[in-house]
Structure formats: C-alpha cells, structure tokens
C-alpha cells in the first residue's frame, strides 16, 4: 500500500466474506453473531491503511448475516463510528455491504474486485498486486472476516497477549470447525496449533458409533487428506504443510469408513468444475474431464488408463499451470486421494462397480 501521505488517496479496504469453501462455516458465525466486532475491525483496518471506503463482500446466501451486517452498519453510522470526519479525527470512512451474485470464484480476491466492479468474476494476473492496482485500479487491501475480527481485541490488549494465546508459532487463536460423522459437529475458537486429534476426539467428541475416521480434509475442499497416523499434527500453517496438506480454512471435513472416498472426490470435483470461471483452459476443460472420469469410475465404468489421466491432471492443473488457485486447490484432495486411496480406485476399476454401493455398510 502507498504510505499515508502518498497518492493515490482513494484506497479501498475489502472484507472477503464470501465464504463458499465446501465444509467451511466459520465466517458465518462471526457475521451472524458478532457483526459489530467485524465492523470495528474494518474501521481500525481502514484507518491503518487510510482507506476511506470499505466493502464487505458477503456470500449472497448468507441472508441472516447480510441482514445483521446492514443493521450493524446503520447502527455504527448512527453512533458516528463511521461516516465523515469520525469523532473529529479528520478520517472518514464509508462501509458498503455487498451481497455476492453467488459464485465460488468471487471469493478469489482479484475476481472479487471484478465482481464488485460489476464485471465477470474472472481473477486478475499478478503483478500488479492489489496494493498497487486493486478495486477500480486503486490500491486495495483484502482481508478475511476472521482476521479483521481479531483486530479489536489485539488493539485493546496488545500483541503479546494475543501471541500468548497460541500453542504454536502462529500467534493467537483460530476458529476450527468439524463436519462429518462426529458426535458433536461444530465450531470452536481454540489456540492456534491445537492438535487435530484433540479437536476431533475432545471437542467434537470423536466418531459416532459404528463409524471410524479414515481421513480428514483439514481446511475445506481445497486441502489434501490427512491420514490417521498424522492426527497428532498441530493445526497451524507450517505443521500441516509439513505433512503434505495445508491449513486452509481450518474447517475439518471428516471421511469415515462407510463413505466411498472416490464418491467424495467426485462430489468435490463436481463442485470445482462447476465453479470454474471458464477463463483458463486447464481449469475450464480439465476439471469437467476429471469430474466425468471420477463419475465413470464411481459408476463402475472406469478404465485402467483413467488413473494415469487423473495423475496427468494433478500435475498439469497444479500451481503455475492455471491462471488462479482454483484448479490447484481442486487437485489437492485428488492428488492425496490418488496416493492414499489407490487401492479403492483400483477396486472400482477392476470390479466395475463401487465397492460401497448397495452394501450394508454403505453410508446412510
């Protein structure tokens, strides 16, 4: 971002509240339950970068969140927390709450700009960074809801207090969520770096009766599987990366033994193929091919070469090959799935049927 006294003086702070990652629901809680905290974070953040206009870009389906955010903004305006010359500080801020038209790609920061500008939500190439040319070509900062909600308490109590809350090198706390066949699916604010098995077995109460945990996606659909032997991993950025996955949103999806992993992957790839914006070739035409191949395998129509084809896509839809991170994200669970569930893939192809299909163990 340009310095305080450097032009251009029109700058934007954008809150990415377009939470659409499959399996993730942490921002929703913050938006619905503590909208004032977010607005406070926005005001502080905007002041820090001297942005006079802020947009909160909210997932369109978060109707309740939108309703409450709008009300909170009105309240903040009424109290003079936002508006012109806030409390005589000389600093002015306008906050707009914007409901997304509804595509996953809008959550990609640069595509979010395009969406806000009323164009097709197509990501933009970097450089230029958004701090140089972002929304409407002006310096822009994009932050996540969770990040901005952390700001007010940090300002209030200091950085050391915040850092001290953590159990890892990444300071502070994190909202961890779990979905799947656990006893208590939910969302918890825990110290950063809380081990996965602690979240899974203590906070979520472990697996429901009759279900075993085979693997988890640690941070939404764009992360690689973590297998049980690594469940002692501390849920922070570096530790999760070390075991070949990534923290993502920190919202964990649990795969149990009664669910076909290929079926799960097919569902995920269906989502990504559908949510591709259609801009770059590998993502636009590669993901539907992957989806159709997985569908065929799941339906017992897979061929031996299909696994090579999937491996081909995993390597050529990786980072740097595609325009943005959507396709590499889509390949993360598939790559790990091909590694950890190779035998299941082969059984589908060899038996010409899904081994989970119509069995009494099948997921209900």
């Amino acid at each position, binding site marked *: 971002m340009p310095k305080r006294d450097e032009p251009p003086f029109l700058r934007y702070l954008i809150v990415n509240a377009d939470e659409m990652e499959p399996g993730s629901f942490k921002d929703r809680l913050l938006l619905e339950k503590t909208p004032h905290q977010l607005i406070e974070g926005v005001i502080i953040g905007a002041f820090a970068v001297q942005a006079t206009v802020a947009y909160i870009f909210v997932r369109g389906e978060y109707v309740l969140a939108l309703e409450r955010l709008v009300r909170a903004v009105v309240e903040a305006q009424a109290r003079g927390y936002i508006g012109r010359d806030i409390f005589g500080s000389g600093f002015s801020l306008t906050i707009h709450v914007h409901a997304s038209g509804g595509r996953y790609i809008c959550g990609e920061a640069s595509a979010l700009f395009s969406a806000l500008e009323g164009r097709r939500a197509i990501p933009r190439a970097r450089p230029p960074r958004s701090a140089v040319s972002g929304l409407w*070509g002006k310096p822009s900062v994009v932050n996540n809801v969770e990040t901005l909600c952390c700001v007010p308490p940090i300002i209030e109590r200091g950085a050391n207090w915040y850092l001290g809350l953590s159990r890892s090198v990444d300071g502070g706390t994190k909202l961890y969520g779990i979905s799947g066949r656990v006893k208590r699916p939910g969302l918890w604010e825990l110290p950063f770096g809380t081990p996965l098995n602690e979240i899974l077995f203590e906070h979520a109460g472990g697996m429901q009766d009759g279900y075993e945990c085979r693997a988890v996606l640690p941070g939404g659909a764009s992360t690689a599987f973590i297998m049980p032997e690594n469940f002692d991993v501390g849920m922070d950025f570096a530790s999760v990366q070390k075991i070949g996955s990534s923290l993502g949103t920190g919202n964990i999806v649990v795969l149990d033994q009664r669910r076909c992993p290929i079926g799960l992957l097919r569902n995920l790839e269906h989502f990504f193929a559908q*949510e591709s914006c259609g801009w*770059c070739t590998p993502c636009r*035409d590669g993901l539907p091919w992957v989806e159709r191949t997985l569908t065929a395998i799941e339906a017992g129509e897979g061929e031996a070469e299909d696994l090579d084809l999937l491996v081909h896509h995993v390597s050529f839809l990786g980072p740097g090959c595609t325009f943005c991170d959507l396709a590499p994200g889509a390949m993360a669970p598939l790559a790990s799935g091909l590694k950890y569930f190779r035998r299941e893939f082969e059984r589908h192809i060899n038996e010409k049927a899904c081994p989970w299909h119509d069995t009494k163990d099948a997921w209900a």
Partner: protein
Amino acid sequence: MTTFVVDGKSFTCKPDDNLLQACLHAGWDLPYFCWHPALGSVGACRQCAVKQYASEDDKVGRLAMACMTPVSEGARYSITDPVATAFRASVIEWLMVNHPHDCPVCEEGGECHLQDMTVMTGHAYRRYRFTKRTHRNQDLGPFIKHEMNRCIACYRCVRFYRDYAGGRDLDVFAAHDHVYFGRYADGILENEFSGNLVEICPTGVFTDKTFSRHYVRKWDMRGAPSICVHCGLGCNTITNEREGKLRRIVNRYNGSVNGYFLCDRGRFGYGFVNGTDRIHAPLARGDDGRQGAISSDDAIRRFAALLRSSSRVVGIGSPRASLESNFALRALVGAENFYLGVSARESHLLRLLVGILDSGAVHTPSLREAQQADAVLILGSDLPNTAPRAALAVRQAVRRAGFTLAAAAKIPHWQDTAVRNLAGDARSPLFVATLVATRLDDIARIALRAAPADIARLGFAVAAILDPDAPAVSDLPTDLAAQAATIAGALLAAEQPLVISGIETGDESVVQASVNVALALRASGKSGALMLNVPECNSLGLALMANGHGGLEVALAQPAALVIALENDIYRRAEATVIEAALASSYLVALDHSEGPTTRRADLVLPATSFAECGGTLVSSEGRAQRFYQPIFSKNDVSESWRWLGAAGWAAGRKVCENWSTLDNMVVALAAALPRFARLPDVAPPASFRVVGSRIASQPRRFSGRTAMNAAHSVRDPKPPVSTDSPFSTTMEGYHGKVPSALFPLFWAPAWNSVQSINKFQAEIDGALEGGDPGIRLLEARTDAVLPYYTNIPEGFVPRSDMWFAFVFPRVFGDDEQSARAASIRERMAGATLALNGEDAAHIGVVSGQSVACEIGGEQLCLTLEIHPEMPHGLAGIAGLATVAHALPTLVRITPTGSDVS
C-alpha cells in the same frame, strides 16, 4: 535491447516485450491463442507455456506463460523442455475436449490457427471419451456465421469487439465449460468492425457469411494485394478469386495504415464485383434508341470516330477510378477539358484540401500515428460512418492516458487487463464536435452537437487561444468559449495532439478552422497533425490531378460535343435536370463496371474493370499512393478504362496514347507529366520485377482443380492468363516466399496457415512489415512551409422557423456507391430518413416514424422522420439518400406528407 536465452541460445528483444513476442520475433514457433499483438496478453489459454529458470544453476525451472512474462536481461527459458512441451500438448488436448473436429466441413479449415497450433504442439491422440457439450448457434446478421461448438474460449472475440472496437452487443455468457460467446439473443452484430471477428477468432466460430455463399478453400484461391475502395483511408486488403469470381476480402497488414483490422464496409462491400448489373460487353445506342451489345473493335472504332469528329470533348474524372485511368482521360481530352467529376461543392472543398496539403504546413498522419495521438479534436466528421477505420484508431488513441498510468505503475503495456483496470475511466482527451451523435461519443470528453458554422467557430476559437496570432472569434457564446478553452488546454498539454476534419459537412469553414488549429499547434511547437477525410478511395488522387477546374457543373456549363464519363455515376454528382440539359446536344460515352443511371443514359458504354480486374494506384486521404492488383482475369470484353481510352485515342490518331500498353507505362507517363506524382513508379515494383528469375506465384502451392474446374466447358487444360501489368504469375507456378511488402498475394509461412502468419512478415511484431510498410506518401510537411491562418470566420448559425439546414447524415452502410450494390451491405441499409430535434418536429407537427416531405436537389422526397434529441435546432439530417448528397447542405422546407409542399 534485452538479451535472453532460450534453450541455450541467446536472442535479443525490445526491453518492453513479453516473452512470447520476443520468441516469435526470434523465429521460434511458440503456439498461442489468446494473445494478439493488437490486443495484448491476458494469460487465459495457457498455450504459450515455457520453462523459466531462476538462474544458470536452476535445472528444474517452473512453467511460465510466455505472453505474461516480461523478458529480463539474461533470463533463461526453455521451449523444448519436455514438461513444457507436454503441457502445451495437454492444453490442445483440453481444447479438443469439446471441439467438434469438424475440419472437413469447417470453413476455417486450411487457414485455422487451431489446426496450426495443434500440429505445432504435436498433439494427435485424444483420450477424452465422454460426451461433448454442444451450443445453439445464433443468426448474427448478413456478415457473420456463428458456430459455437468450435469455440475454444480464447476470449479474443469479446476482447476485440468490446474492449478494442467499443461494441456492446457481443459478450461472454455463462461459466465453466459452458462459456458462450454471442449476443444476448439472435440478431445483427451492430458494430461496424464485426468482420474482424472472422480473423480474430483462431478457429471457425465466426466465419464470413458472404464468403460462405461461394466458399472455396484458402488454398484454392488466387490472391492479390489490393486497396479498399469504399472510403478514403486506403486500407490494405487481399482479394481472393476462383473461377472468375471475387470470393472474399481479407485484411492485408500494413503497419502504418490499417494494421490488423478492416471495417465491415470494406470487408463485405465487394459483392458488386460479382453483381448481376455488371456490364460485360460494350453497348451502343441504336437507331431505335435502345442500347445493344457491340464488339470491342466496333466500340473502339465508334469511340475513335467521336473523338475525331467532336469539337469540344469534356472528360469527367472519377474519385473512385485509379490514378492511371484518370490520367489517361486527362491526357486524352487535355488538362483544360478534364474535370473532377464531383459536385461543385465537393470539387471546391477538394481543391481547398489540396492547397492545404500542398503547402507542406500541416502533417497528415498515418492511421498508426493517429492511434498514438494523446489528444484528439474532431471537427465535423462522423468518423464511424465515413472513415470507420480512423474511428477505430481514435478509439485506441484515448487509451494513451491509461498506458501512461500503467507505465508509472510499472505495468507492461501488453498486460491488457491490468492496464485497463488501472486506467479505469482515465482517457486521453477526445473532443467530438459534430452535427449528430457519433459512435465515438462514449469515449469523448466533450461531445458537442452544433451546426457546421458553429463547429467552425469553435475550431477558430481553439486556434485563437492556442496562438494569439490566429484570428479571434467575436461574440462566441460563453459555453462554446469555455469548451474552446478546455479543448485548447488539452491539445496544448498533449505531446502528439491530432486534429481530424474532412469535407463531409460540405462547409469549407470547418476545414479551415481545423487547419487553423493545426497551424496554431505547430506554432506552439507541436507537430500539427491534421487528418482530413475525403469521401472516396481516390478523391485526393483525383484532386491532385485537377487543373484548377471546378466540378461537374462547370464541366457541363458549356456545351460539348462529346462527354466522356469515367467510372462515375454523374447523376450522383449533380441535379438530373442540369445533366439532362447539358447532355441534350452531346454524345455521352460512359466507362464503368456496373449499370447505372449514367450508363443507361450513355450513347456508348465501355465495360470497365472493377478494382478486382485491374491494377492501379490510389491515393488515400493520408496522401499515400498505394498499388492494387487484379485477382480476376476476365475473358469477356471488360478492360481497364485507361486501355479503352488508349485504344480509342490511338485509333483516333492521338500521339499521346502511343505507349499506353501497360500499367507501368501509364505510371511512367503520369510521373513524367505531373511532378506531384514523380515518385509513383516507386510505389510498387514494376511488372518486370522477378525474384530469382520468377514471377511471384499468386496461387498457393496446393491450388487444386486447375484442369478440372473448366472441364464442363472443355477438357483441355486452358492456357493460364498472363499478367502484363504485374510481376505476378496467375498460377501457383512462380516464386513462393519473401517478396517486397507491396506484393503479398497471401500470408503463409511454414506451419502458419492462418492470418497469424503475419508475425513472420513483420520487421518486429506489431510493427512495420519487413522492407517497410507499402505505399509512398506524396505529401510531406516541410519545416519551412508557411500557410497563413484562415480569417473568414463564419457567423454563428441561427435557426429559422420556416426552413431547416439539411445536411448529409452519414451512414456506414449505403452511402458508398459501390458497396451499396453488395447484397450483404444492402441487408444492413436502412430506409431514407430525416432526422430532427424533437422540438423542431413538434413545431412542424410531426412525430417519429411519420413521413415528411421536402425538396432536395430538384427532387421531391418523402422521408421517414427520426427524432434525434441531441441535434441542434434548425438542423435536418438526411440519411440513406446518397444520391442527393451532392445538393447538401441546403435549406429545405419540411412538411408533413399530404399537406401542400409549396
């Protein structure tokens, strides 16, 4: 220059090039789709992937898209790296997932960039075994065919149509692998540059519908370099022929003129060449008063007899005939009897233009220069309708401000999306002062509607602000004065300001005002670039040949025994009653390619060639003399006008015609006779030009059916025609390879069958052609040249309550005589209308859509009323009636039809 390394070899490129451009320039065949030299890079297709290495020690490297990679000094890349090669093949495989592989029935086949790139990547075997998605196609009007299933979603079409050409009715819909490029509903593509989609599209989604009606493969056509004959800009084209038919027109890159793009009038207006109203044999009026066909020899005999017996012979030249034909007529009848063949008003204005350009005090920019202007003032010219390609150049010129911002933010100029995003609404200033709204108003800082006199006053006022020595305008209304100050300030702040005007308002003061602005800018130390539009393809060339005479009315004022009308429908140039009166005791000989009022009136008609059946030279509004060549060799009596004139003249004993046997002789004679044209022989190589002893092949090597195509008539292999006027062979025999830039019969390079092969012919990508762009500028500005300011500033326009100032409301389709004969253009032509301001219409008591009557040029006209709220009071725009344009502007009474017109 920047040095970079590809696969161990060092190359150099311009420091601001991207890697793809640099590699193509270095001669590498690196495949690509979404990148286009005129559109920049967006990184969408991922086809140009290469390996990029961080250092000499980096042996792994990472994939990078060449089009999105700035080349840094000493950077190392690999094109042949196995991973990069496999990835590029994979991109083709993805594109082929939904592509229908319908090459055998696809009209793009044989010149398809997708075919070329597929072969280039080596991809052959497709593993995709599922259903392909299909789309519904749209009817996009008379010019463009739509076949969406072939789409590979490179986004070039919308980037050209919307971002580059300013069109609104083509867009991309839906998402993921369902992206759809089309209109929101079936309907005519409105933008006048829609034809470029045919060449922009790398495959067969958008194809030429007019070509489709008589389609043949690219390799089965003879090509000839040509010049567009449908406005004064002189865009370079390639004409394609087979079996005596003109099949299509495609763009011929000229870095200084049209670059990669043509307008739809130029691309689709060729239908008249194949028209049913072509004249194939000489016609003579018999005793019964009817015209009948006669032999060529008879025609020449009769013509010669007329030349011998007639006391006064008047030659009427043509702004759409070649320099050579006009010169032949001028030489035959004598300079004193040669007239411009345009209306008195137009003749006056053209001679004014020649005086201005001849003075050397103003610089006439090429379209390339116009595109680089950073402030543009348009006085009186509705560019999108009268000189469309210039409007496209202006549309790019306003982006200069954005490029400046991008440069400051260190964003490379080719990074298209980033530049556009950063620029936002920042545009270099464009000021459009015209009579009616134009399709450039959306990017204009000021779009002003005024009568010609007020447009001129604005221009004079701008000049007076720029240079106090320029005559001031008295009593300028405050709003105009304020606008003049804004315009003057912007022009002065610019580095390369440009003034555009022309003769289409019919008002000399508008032209003079534009000259004053250019002169005032020159006095302020700027180049003083002034672009003056002329209506027809050789208007300027004809005017440069004039001898101080007036136009048609002057020619007809005195009785003449013989009037020779050269490729000219004189009924479009003067009132019919005037013509009839003048011709009452004259013999009229008409030379033209198609039947019209003039040939019907003529006593002797000689079938002239169209631009596609002869060679010749035209002078564009830039003053650029350019040569065109014939793709069609007709077997009937059609001949070049200069040949008819020469043959008749020689038969009549005129010594001057002695050496008129070839085009080169005509050119030499012209250059010798008129010093202005001294450099004409250098415009293009002479017919004797050979490359390694060979003529240049005008048909591709793969040309097929040479013997079979005539089998229905004769099984003998016919002797191919011989071109006496060009260095081309008429067949595939001859030299295939690099030829002088004025002589490209087609663009083809090994592995590059599509128009994208142009990369191989440019000295630098997007720059001039190797050996320099074709054409010779006849009129250059001179630093010592002086032209005094024009001082006759007109009075401001005062609307009258009883009469309206009727002017030509130009239309891109229909105003041009020749293209208006083309079926596809006719589909785009609308009926004749009269445009009025709403209040004026109310004053007359008429509403939109109602018929109104008025008298113009001695004709009672019944026109449909159109309301144009932006039009100034007292003005009436006459559209779709090019035949009465000669009488405009004029004051008219307007009445609702049915009421008393008097």
